[in-house]
């Protein structure tokens, strides 16, 4: 507490935001306590079938993450060595698919596999497509990690060791926090994904939760079934947060100039192959979209297609506009006070499967009696905020934590309150705020899992529309919708990567940006 500062509004606002995120889960927990006598608590134990499914889902996600890292690390190391605008463009293009929804990857790969007469079902296919869908995120994490590596330390090592040894002994350990954070978030996303496996006829534990709620309609049973997955996701989210908390500061910026040096041919060959694989998601996506249009004699998007896009964009925009300030508030509080309860809020929000937060939201608003929520966008919007706020909080926390604390302290010596946020902090973290804004918008625009549960009658989100077409047979009218969504996603993904670059440069300039008269 600080004398003379009006902290009451900030405390109340933090409690409200934390309540908004946790309310669906709290409602389910309260219901569980009240009905504990009449329900089967044994459902929390997955049993032989559920246990096997959980293990299979875990193993699947783990393989996806490991394979992704095996490609992303060598690919990123080569991409970082390419200097100038061509290097920037290559990195941007490789990262751009980061916000493309997994079901679009599924669509493109299905088209590709069909065109060469290969099977579109089975573990191997699902695994390859899921890995391709997650690769841009892992690549982004490795590239961000490499951005933080001090080139002076790397160059010092090059005096004593070759390029490959320097990379594995000096560069990679410095990039480790971002890579671990990216890998753990990939695990969380992959564990909770069921749209993509469903398109390839694969059953996952996340789908089991959705099926439980769809069949039984019991939110308490859904909670019990989801519990093992939630705990597993929390574990990886904790590791991700710990890794983000140990991100180094950007102490210097510049290319290492390593391309000038000759290296072991195997090292270069592997890196080149990895780059080729790293670009495959983008190429397949573009090919798939073009093939869909040209192959089916697609008609332009119908009015209903436009309406679905407009409705989804409006909800995504509203959710983003609400979520970013809430996340900023939580991130500031986490940074300054490190309250364990706030970390718990973030963890819950990240680890909660969409089906569970959807079931909780329905329960919550039916208790409150929010009739209006069921008729319009209210329910999908509230459901989206549960997942978006913690994700943006994590991102903004990392940005705030990494910004130079001295200019902030210098401002605190002379002022307090909101003026510090608007006049100082905003300018320290603006690329992070804009990046968070675009990321949330990109994730919520094609949102599928929550929309399936929470969309009101007569409302068709763009994610549902595309998923239904893909699941039950492609329709020509959806081709342009897919192309439009793909282009928007790529544009947003590229912009997010640029914002990350700006943020790193800004942090660097705050620390060492003088001596340029």
């Amino acid at each position, binding site marked *: *507490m*600080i*004398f*003379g*500062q009006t902290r009451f509004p900030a405390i109340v606002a933090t409690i409200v935001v934390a309540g908004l995120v946790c309310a669906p889960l709290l409602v389910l927990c309260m219901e569980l306590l009240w009905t504990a006598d009449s329900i089967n608590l044994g459902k929390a134990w997955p049993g032989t079938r559920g246990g096997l499914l959980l293990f299979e889902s875990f193993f699947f996600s783990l393989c996806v993450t490991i394979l992704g890292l095996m490609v992303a690390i060598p690919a990123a190391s080569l991409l970082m060595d390419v200097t100038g605008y061509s290097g920037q463009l290559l990195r941007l293009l490789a990262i751009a698919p980061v916000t493309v929804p997994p079901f679009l990857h599924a669509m493109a790969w299905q088209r590709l596999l069909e065109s060469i007469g290969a099977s579109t079902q089975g573990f191997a296919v699902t695994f390859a497509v899921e890995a391709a869908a997650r690769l841009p995120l892992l690549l982004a994490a490795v590239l961000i990690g490499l951005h933080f590596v001090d080139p002076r330390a790397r160059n010092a090592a090059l005096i004593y060791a070759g390029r490959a040894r320097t990379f594995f002994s000096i560069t990679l350990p410095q990039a480790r926090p971002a890579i671990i954070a990216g890998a753990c978030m990939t695990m969380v996303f992959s564990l909770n994904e069921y749209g993509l496996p469903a398109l390839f006829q694969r059953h996952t534990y996340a789908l089991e939760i959705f099926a439980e709620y769809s069949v039984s309609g019991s939110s308490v049973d859904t909670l019990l079934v989801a519990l093992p997955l939630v705990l597993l996701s929390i574990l990886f989210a904790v590791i991700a947060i710990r890794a983000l908390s140990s991100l180094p500061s950007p102490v210097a910026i510049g290319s290492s100039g390593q391309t000038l040096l000759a290296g072991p041919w195997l090292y270069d060959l592997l890196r080149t192959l990895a780059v080729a694989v790293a670009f495959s998601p983008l190429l397949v996506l573009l090919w798939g979209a073009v093939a869909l249009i040209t192959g089916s004699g697609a008609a332009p998007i119908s009015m209903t297609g436009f309406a679905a896009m407009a409705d989804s964009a409006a909800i995504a925009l509203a959710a983003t506009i609400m979520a970013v300030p809430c996340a900023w508030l939580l991130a500031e509080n986490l940074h300054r006070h490190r309250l364990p309860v706030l970390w718990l809020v973030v963890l819950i929000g990240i680890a909660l499967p969409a089906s569970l937060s959807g079931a909780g939201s329905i329960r919550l608003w039916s208790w409150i009696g929010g009739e209006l929520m069921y008729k319009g966008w209210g329910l999908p919007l509230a459901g989206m905020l549960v997942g978006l706020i913690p994700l943006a909080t994590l991102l903004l926390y990392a940005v705030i934590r990494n910004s*130079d604390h*001295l*200019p902030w*302290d*210098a*401002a*605190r*010596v*002379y*002022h*307090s309150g909101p003026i510090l946020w608007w*006049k*100082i902090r905003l*300018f*320290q973290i603006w690329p992070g705020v804009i990046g968070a804004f675009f990321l949330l918008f990109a994730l919520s625009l094609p949102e599928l899992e929550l929309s399936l549960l929470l969309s009101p009658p007569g409302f068709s989100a763009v994610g549902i529309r595309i998923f239904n077409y893909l699941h039950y047979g492609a329709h020509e009218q959806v081709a342009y919708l897919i192309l439009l969504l793909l282009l928007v996603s790529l544009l947003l993904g590229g912009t997010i990567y640029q914002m990350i670059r700006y943020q790193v440069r*800004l942090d660097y*300039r*705050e*620390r060492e*940006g*003088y*001596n*340029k*008269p």
Partner: protein
Amino acid sequence: MIKVQSLSHGFSGQPVLDQLDLDLEPGEKLVISGKSGAGKTTLIRLLAGLELPDSGSIEIDDISMHSGSAMVAPHQRSISVVFQRPALWQHMKVSAHLEFVASGTGQKKESTVREILQATGLESLKDRRPHQLSEGQARRVAIARAIAAQANYMLMDEPLVNLDQEAKSDLFELIESHIVATGMGLLFVTHDETEAELLGGSRLWLRQGRLWPTPAVGRAGESIVGPAVASL
């Protein structure tokens, strides 16, 4: 008057300051020297209210600065701080830095800023942003910003570190003419004995978490104090 009694603070169980006592009168110039890691920056941050001490008391102008886990906010302490790095706000022009600080003083912002820009020789740089400044110019802006706060006490945490001799001399002149002359209490911490000697005023040595009288050093570098103090 800044009055510090039995101030203790540590990080991760390692004590940095241990039962430290300190008095700083208005208009007094006190130089604290100490090696890297001695706790000089920690002391400045505690006095500024940027950290909450583990124990002990800090009074500024007879007002206690903290009680339990509550403390007086930094901007209400009538102090200004010059940090080890310039810590300028990258998006603001030089004049905007002074305006931002002066707006909290209740004085006429424009006239205060103009006077300080003139006095500190920054008029020609007023429209530049931090990345357009040299290191020495950035330090000058940091000192000007601290002057603009018109506080009763100024805390300086190695403000001249990494500067060449010419830039240091310029900034010493600035400190002498515009801070000491205004009757502000000045607490200047440094690890550089030459800086400490150049600035003059009272001198103390921070070692083992406490303040000690500085061991005087002879011309040839040999200690001319008793073995008890010299051993510190």
